[in-house]
């Protein structure tokens, strides 16, 4: 099966006068891992919002497993198999961690795909928390989500995505705010997600860590895709370095 699992063609989106997404196209094979990088304001989050349906594009098309999902409502896209995390991950603060997971675990898709695999919701939730690194017998799942430290919240966000049994997992700056050791503990999990055949899309700033996981990257700047390829090739291109570091201003003479 060499059909791309997701194909983005000529995606455009403007907010007022600003073109946040300017004619972006790319495609991914099932099981590929993509990194989307670029300086701040380059349109990475808008691209994620477009793919996941939270924002409707002005032009362009998104095909998921051959199906046209352009303009489809976000909750339907989730149920088709694309899960995303949020950059500003806000859990349901007043609920326990465990209850935070009940909501995605009970979603239509998750219920259908899980079938009777875990017996009941509780077991499914505990299992999921274990997968992302919460110890089974600890008290953490019963604590209020608002009381969790940042690294745990990020992992909860990841658990939330995995609960949906997605085909594509989109992570919006998962590593932001995590310490080196926290990232190190999450990387095996991401490897396992890839191993299970899921397609991964990660928007990141922490390039070193990102490059260890993904197969290829796309560089955005001012809404335009300025480069695509494997990290080693892409990072040496002029337009990429100048996008991140700026170019020298030519002095007179």
């Amino acid at each position, binding site marked *: 099966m060499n059909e791309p699992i997701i194909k983005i063609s000529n995606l455009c989106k403007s907010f007022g006068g600003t073109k946040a997404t300017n004619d972006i196209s790319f495609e991914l094979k099932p099981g590929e891992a993509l990194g989307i990088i670029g300086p701040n304001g380059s349109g990475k989050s808008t691209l994620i919002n477009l793919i996941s349906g*939270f924002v409707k594009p002005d032009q362009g098309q998104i095909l998921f497993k051959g199906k046209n999902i352009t303009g489809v409502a976000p909750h339907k896209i989730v149920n088709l198999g694309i899960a995303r995390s949020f950059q500003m991950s806000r859990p349901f603060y007043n609920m326990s961690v465990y209850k935070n997971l009940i909501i995605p675990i009970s979603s239509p*898709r998750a219920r259908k795909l899980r079938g009777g695999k875990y017996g009941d919701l509780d077991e499914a939730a505990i299992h999921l928390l274990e997968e992302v690194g919460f110890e089974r017998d600890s008290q953490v799942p019963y604590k209020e989500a608002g009381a969790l430290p940042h690294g745990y919240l990020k992992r909860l966000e990841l658990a939330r995505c995995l609960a949906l049994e997605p085909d594509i997992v989109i992570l919006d700056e998962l590593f932001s705010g995590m310490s080196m050791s926290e990232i190190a503990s999450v990387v095996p999990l991401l490897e396992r997600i890839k191993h299970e055949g899921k397609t991964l899309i990660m928007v990141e700033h922490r390039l070193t860590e990102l490059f260890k996981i993904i197969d290829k990257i796309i560089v955005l700047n001012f809404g335009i895709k300025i480069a695509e390829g494997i990290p080693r090739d892409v990072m040496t291109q002029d337009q990429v370095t100048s996008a991140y570091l700026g170019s020298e201003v030519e002095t007179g003479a």
Partner: protein
Amino acid sequence: MRTNTSQRKERIDRGIKVRSDEIFVLASMRDLLYAIWPKAIVILAMLILPLLKDVVGMYWLNVLVTTLVVILLALSWDLLASAGLVSLGQAFFFGVGSYIAGYLSFRFGWSPLFTIPTATLVGALISALFLYPVLRLRGIYFGLITFALPLLLGRLIEATKVLGGTEGMSALPPLPGITGKLYLLMFIVLLTLFGFRRLVSSNYGLVLQGIRDNDRAVIAAGYNIQWYKAQAVFIAALPATFAGAFVAHHFQFVGIPAFALDYSILPLTAVVVGGAGTFIGGALGAVILMPLSELLREFGSLRVVIYSLILLIFSVGLPEGLFKYIKRKYSQIERLTTMEEVKHE
């Protein structure tokens, strides 16, 4: 180095609360009583009250009916708020229920036994349909439209003279029996109270609370939140439309006053005073305020002034509401402890 001792307040749970909170094991009769007696007393009181009708008199029984009606409207409000929808117009649901019941019996001669259930269900359905377009908006827009709707409907009826116009529909068939009526009303109140509390703490209710706290995350979990909000409106409307239908047959009259601002303000005040989000809070608020309101009746317009001042003071001064305050006091001990502040010089 200087040490300053000063005092701060600390709150710790009472022992009995800690033991009985995760009610897996009730270690003693005392624990059991602690958990149960508040609810038992209320239910007992409600069972006994209608039997006292000869002692208490029709006037106060009417006050009881009004109080129970306001409780229903407050419970309805609380469920909507649990889903993040703030209603400033409970009168809308009330009036819709009232008019449907009134029309069915006025025009077609139906008995209350049929009009009330029909008005309740159809009324809730109509309400959900009417409000569906604004469910996709956030924040204050739901409040604004619920505020304007009952006023609009009232003026429309007045202007078009349909459904009885300014005169309304009168001489509607009554509900049989005074005690029977009261028990029916109380039953519905208790059903709604316990039912809604159950609903909100269930997994379904969790989704509604999720919508209130972070609707994007619920969308990202694959739920059609518009549909869930519509369900919440329907379910929340049921006690309110029932209340309207009941009152239509209790006073045997339906008119434009069914959409009066009072029916929006009273439950709102009850909930603000008693505490939003707890369901019992609204009931507590209503139980305190309605009899109080009756006692103030002779003051005319001043009554409304006092009412709104109470609303104002509570919404700003005690936003958590009386119920949560009392519950906190019941379950926690507050005391002053000394703390040492070490100042380095």
